[in-house]
């Protein structure tokens, strides 16, 4: 019987299936961080349980860590307790940890692929919704709650019901200035933030095929913003090239065996999807969000939409609330919106390619007087590589701050936060009310668009600075 890529991975991980479809699936890779794991370890202790497979688990502090000088430790008492707790739990239960001062430390979804911990055909979970990122490698990767983290630690399995299959084909080619971030924003804008609920999404089509691994990660990362827990892209030579010789990738004979298996990971020609969506690459423009939901997207050449033209009453109300929160009036030109802050980083756009693209556009230019801007590399290794290439100097001489790696202003759990009414062009993934700081106003953009906004001091078309 022909199967989708998701069907294949699911079937390969089935430990037990009850008659009602409730299944126990095996977890090959478990990533943990300081925010969603303390209660899980505490649960293990209370029940006198162990971590079943510490060697399949990797831990890193990322959400809380300061992005300034870390040699003095963490000032915030609560953040410090969480990071210390992770360290102690890892020691007690024998889990490998990249600690705050380790050069391999970084955002959990950046370090997994970077280390080769992320591999095609595996089931990967983490107590973080952006675990979907790892789907770029053809792995079934999704976010779980803390109780499920505890379940995985104790049993190396998870109780699940199979999701439905949705394929999103992005066909054709992308116009100049349009990047992976615009592709995924377009997808979310098209199907809505609940459009993928109950599905696992496979991203396919020529545009997806032509994306680099970094770009594929950007697309899969925001699958959750379309409501689906997991997004997948079939692995290919690019995937194998990326993983070859990574620290935790298979070596020698194991590599050869793994590649043979990985090459079987694709959706069969005549397989059936429960739903399919087609998008033309040519129709995608550089996008920005204007509201407080990732589906609130508009081309940078467009205007803030008018809620009064919306026929659905609930939607009209939601739009009005968003515009009031964002301090925007209907029909304002997007390119007239002034910006106070620029944030380049996060598990969506904090990889080396993102920094290269941003630096290339920024070379020899200065940020506008009215903005302050920061770059937070996704990991210590990304930071080191960028410094080796001299990208840090480009950012700094343009007026950006060059920080230590972590989640930072994507969710503002550390001191990197927006003040009330401050407006930010951000390469992160969520523009929810208060996400980057109470009252803060977030416009989601690609790294190139963030640079354009930094130079002009307002939301701007990246094609004008190319």
């Amino acid at each position: 019987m022909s199967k989708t890529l998701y069907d294949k991975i699911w079937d390969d991980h089935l430990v037990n299936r009850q008659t009602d479809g409730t299944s126990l699936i095996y977890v090959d890779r478990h990533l943990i961080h300081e925010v969603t794991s303390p209660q899980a370890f505490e649960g293990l202790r209370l029940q006198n349980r162990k971590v079943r497979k510490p060697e399949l688990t990797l831990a890193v502090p990322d959400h809380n860590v300061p992005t300034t000088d870390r040699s003095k430790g963490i000032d915030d008492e609560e953040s410090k307790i969480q990071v210390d707790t992770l360290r102690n739990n890892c020691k007690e239960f024998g889990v490998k940890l990249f600690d705050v001062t380790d050069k391999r430390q970084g955002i959990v979804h950046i370090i997994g692929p970077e280390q080769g911990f992320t591999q095609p055909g595996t089931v990967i979970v983490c107590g973080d919704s952006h675990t979907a990122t790892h789907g770029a490698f053809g792995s079934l990767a999704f976010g779980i709650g803390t109780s499920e983290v505890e379940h995985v630690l104790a049993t190396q399995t998870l109780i699940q019901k199979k999701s439905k299959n949705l394929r999103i084909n992005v066909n054709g080619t992308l116009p100049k200035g349009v990047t992976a971030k615009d592709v995924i924003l377009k997808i979310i804008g098209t199907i809505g933030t609940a459009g993928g609920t109950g599905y696992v999404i496979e991203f396919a089509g020529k545009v997806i095929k032509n994306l680099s691994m970094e770009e594929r990660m950007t697309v899969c990362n925001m699958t959750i913003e379309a409501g689906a827990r997991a997004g997948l892209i079939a692995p290919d030579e690019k995937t194998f090239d990326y993983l070859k010789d990574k620290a935790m990738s298979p070596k020698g004979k194991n590599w050869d065996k793994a590649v043979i298996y990985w090459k079987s990971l694709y959706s069969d020609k005549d397989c059936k999807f429960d739903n399919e969506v087609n998008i033309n690459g040519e129709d995608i423009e550089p996008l920005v969000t204007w509201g407080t939901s990732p589906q609130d997207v508009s081309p940078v050449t467009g205007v803030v939409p008018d809620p009064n033209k919306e026929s659905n009453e609930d939607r009209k109300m939601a739009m009005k609330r968003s515009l009031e929160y964002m301090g925007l009036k209907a029909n304002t030109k997007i390119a007239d919106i002034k910006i106070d802050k620029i944030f380049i980083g996060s598990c969506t756009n904090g990889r080396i390619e993102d920094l290269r693209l941003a630096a290339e556009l920024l070379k020899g230019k200065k940020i506008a007087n009215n903005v302050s801007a920061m770059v937070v590399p996704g990991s210590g290794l990304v930071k080191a590589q960028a410094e080796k290439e001299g990208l840090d100097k480009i950012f700094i001489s343009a007026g950006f701050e060059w920080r230590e790696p972590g989640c930072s202003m994507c969710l503002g759990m550390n001191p990197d936060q927006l003040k009330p009414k401050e407006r930010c062009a951000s390469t992160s993934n969520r523009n929810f009310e208060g996400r980057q700081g109470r009252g803060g106003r977030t416009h989601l953009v690609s790294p190139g668009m963030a640079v354009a906004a930094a130079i002009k001091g307002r939301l701007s078309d990246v094609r004008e600075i190319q």
Partner: protein
Amino acid sequence: MKNFTTLKSIPAYLSLQNIDTDMIIPKQFLKTIKRTGLGKSLFYEMRYDDKGEKIKDFILNKEPFNNTKILIAGKNFGCGSSREHAPWALSDFGIKCVISSSFADIFYNNCFKNGILPIKTSEENVTEISEYSIRQEEINIDLAKQEISFGNKSIKFDLDEFKKKCLLEGLDDIALSMDKIKQIDEFEKKLSLNKPWIFSNE
């Protein structure tokens, strides 16, 4: 886990769509290493002003809704982050049931691990039941019968059998999975033969 059988309460209605987990419990409260004590921070940004004073107009700050056990909300409730702090905060506040026309997947699953019943029902039903919030009249939930009753009417709701059983009996699903340890052992044996690189990269 505490079990769930029946519930009776005047429901609180939040008509907003796409209520995300950042709204339910903002990031500054995720720094805890405990599961308890989050109730006072539930819907923090909507519930308190800049000075930390309660906003009188917000429904959960008003009698009788400050003691409600049932929340009715607009569609796509619980979208965004996977933080289980969201159901912890609801539960700590006293909310044991959320009714909406749709839920985000991760949040929906997290509810069941914490004795909270999320009920999916049609938008028409949500609108009808929300009248009971406005009129401040009690509604009843019966999990065994999969029934919401109000006035002299009752409506059925769908629920996964396994999730229902776990909730009704307050089962610890880790213990249930531990019972399948032999099958997990066998699976791992096969896995190490067929995909040795999963356990060791050398």
